[in-house]
């Protein structure tokens, strides 16, 4: 048993009593102790809570109680989901020190399944960003090269997996915040169908786009976690009351013969780093060898997805973030008895929000203001319809769609920090999925020749057909593993002090 094992292997070792949940949890804290000063994947560790949870699982197992498959396996939780009594900052100064009085539904489900929550992971402030550089608490570093970004907004959740600090993590994906970090860290991440996983207790950024999802080092582990967190929740009015597709069986199927896989013309070809394009094409060759049929599809309106996203998401954020008003929770600045509520609110939001959050609130306020609403927000909503129609037409011709996940491999910290538009372009291939509310997965498909860094392969499936991306992802992963001879993370340089 090693912390480099997969979650499923850890689960087997626990079930066979080769290791206890307390021992496994402690081994992960030792790894965090050794490497997280360099990686900075975590904002907060809840050692006491995790050990007490693990002790409970060990007792139940000793008593012969039937436990769920992942009971006793540790997990890293993105700091945008509430966990009762544990600090939840969303990477923002405005929530520093806030301890929520309730569990999000995702956390309730993790706890019921006996999954051990090690701590909260770093992220771009309120999930706005593609590099984790927008965290008010400093960036996370990519375990493949500490001078590079781990993606964002869920850079902490992805880096924790790649640095073997946790075998499972939870991310959230509004425009690619699960998939792009997975791509640049050589890990797997899934954005489920919108409404597939409850948003109750997920601090809202853009409510019509936000979706929590599972992250892990293998497709099967991701599916096992997906199964735990998905399902109808009456506490979320946008939760889908429909059976969760059998993603675990799908991940184990390893058979794509006869499946139709569509390459989206607008998300392929030029515009990608050479090594990204090459590795994507090599993965397509593997899928053909496995018997899949490749078709090219055209989605002409995807060209406008990025522009529409950067109107819709800021518009919804300008409304959602109004709740940070210095009254009910979080920071309050300037309340010296001489100032009124509005002035205190203005000063608190000036001090508590970072640059990107302010930029998006102002952009959203503009897009929603009278006189500009139709031209900006209204037009963006129409583009959303066109993107949905493009997907519907494409899925008539194929079972899943594929593209590279991100245009480049991990870039250097600081490289794009002063150029918001260049940063926004990271999400060009991931955004259409959120706009239409469908499912999307990223899994590693190789290392780019020019820099030796991981490349992500994106699979998109129709709404509530999340099992399809697991079928294709599982089969492709197995073929690539056979070709490489070892898991992709074994090619990463060893971190100082790492086990």
């Amino acid at each position, binding site marked *: 048993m090693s912390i480099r094992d997969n979650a499923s292997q850890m689960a087997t070792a626990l079930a066979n009593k080769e290791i206890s949940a307390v021992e496994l949890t402690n081994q992960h804290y030792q790894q965090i102790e050794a490497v997280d000063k360099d990686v900075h994947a975590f904002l907060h560790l809840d050692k006491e809570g995790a050990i007490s949870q693990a002790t409970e699982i060990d007792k139940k197992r000793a008593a012969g109680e039937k436990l769920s498959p992942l009971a006793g396996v540790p997990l890293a939780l993105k700091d945008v989901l509430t966990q009762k009594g544990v600090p939840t900052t969303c990477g923002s100064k405005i929530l520093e020190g806030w*301890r*929520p*009085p*309730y569990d999000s539904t995702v956390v309730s489900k993790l706890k019921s399944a006996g999954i051990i929550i090690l701590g909260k992971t770093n992220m771009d402030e309120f999930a706005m960003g593609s590099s984790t550089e927008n965290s008010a608490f400093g960036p996370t570093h990519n375990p493949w090269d500490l001078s590079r970004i781990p993606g964002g907004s869920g850079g902490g959740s992805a880096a924790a997996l790649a640095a073997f600090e946790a075998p499972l993590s939870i991310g959230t994906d509004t425009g690619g915040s699960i998939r792009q970090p997975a791509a640049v860290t050589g890990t797997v991440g899934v954005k489920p169908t*919108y*409404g597939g996983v409850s948003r109750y207790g997920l601090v809202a950024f853009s409510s*019509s786009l936000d979706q929590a999802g599972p992250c892990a080092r293998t497709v099967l582990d991701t599916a096992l976690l997906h199964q735990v967190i998905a399902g109808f929740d*009456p506490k979320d009015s*946008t939760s*889908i009351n429909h059976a969760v597709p059998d993603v675990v069986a799908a991940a184990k199927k390893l058979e794509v013969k006869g499946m139709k896989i569509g390459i989206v013309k607008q998300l392929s070809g030029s515009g990608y780093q050479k090594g990204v394009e090459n590795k994507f094409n090599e993965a397509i060759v593997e899928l053909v060898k496995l018997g899949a049929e490749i078709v090219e599809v055209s989605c002409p*309106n995807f060209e*406008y997805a990025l*522009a*529409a996203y*950067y*109107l819709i998401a800021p518009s919804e954020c*300008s409304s959602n973030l*109004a709740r940070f008003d210095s*009254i009910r*929770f*979080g920071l309050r600045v300037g*309340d010296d008895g001489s*100032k*009124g*509520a*509005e*002035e*205190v*609110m*203005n*000063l608190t*939001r*000036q001090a508590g*929000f970072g640059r990107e959050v*302010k*930029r998006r*609130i*102002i*952009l959203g*306020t*503009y897009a929603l*203001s009278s006189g500009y609403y139709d*031209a*900006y927000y*209204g*037009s*963006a*909503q*129409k*583009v*959303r*319809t*066109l993107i*949905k129609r493009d997907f519907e037409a494409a899925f008539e011709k194929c079972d899943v769609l594929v593209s590279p996940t991100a245009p480049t491999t991990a870039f250097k910290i600081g490289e794009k920090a002063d150029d*918001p*538009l260049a940063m926004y372009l990271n999400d060009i291939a991931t955004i259409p999925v959120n*706009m239409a*509310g*469908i499912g999307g997965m990223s899994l590693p498909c190789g290392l780019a020749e020019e820099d030796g860094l991981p490349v992500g392969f994106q699979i998109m499936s129709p*709404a509530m057909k999340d099992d399809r991306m697991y079928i294709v992802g599982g089969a492709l992963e197995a073929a690539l593993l056979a070709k490489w001879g070892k898991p992709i993370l074994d090619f990463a340089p060893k971190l100082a002090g790492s086990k």
Partner: protein
Amino acid sequence: MAAISRDEVANLARLARIAMSDAELDHLAGEMDVILGAVARVQEVAGKDVPATSHPLDVNNVVREDEVLPSLLPSEALSGAPASEDQRFKVPQILGEE
């Protein structure tokens, strides 16, 4: 001509309840102009015949039976408040002196 002026940005910041220094406003006005220039292209394809989509699902209002369920205690609800008094949120003055 700039798509948005510095005065307009200052007004938006006021509406959004975010105090901003002169330096912040100068910087943001420049950035907003560039971003708006880039996102304005949504207008190219948004014809009159295209309906708007506000949400990926057909969202309907969801109601449940009106039954009493456990909820947060006042102490829990107030646990994150910057200031509270007598089981209430304590806020700075909201009306003028008169």
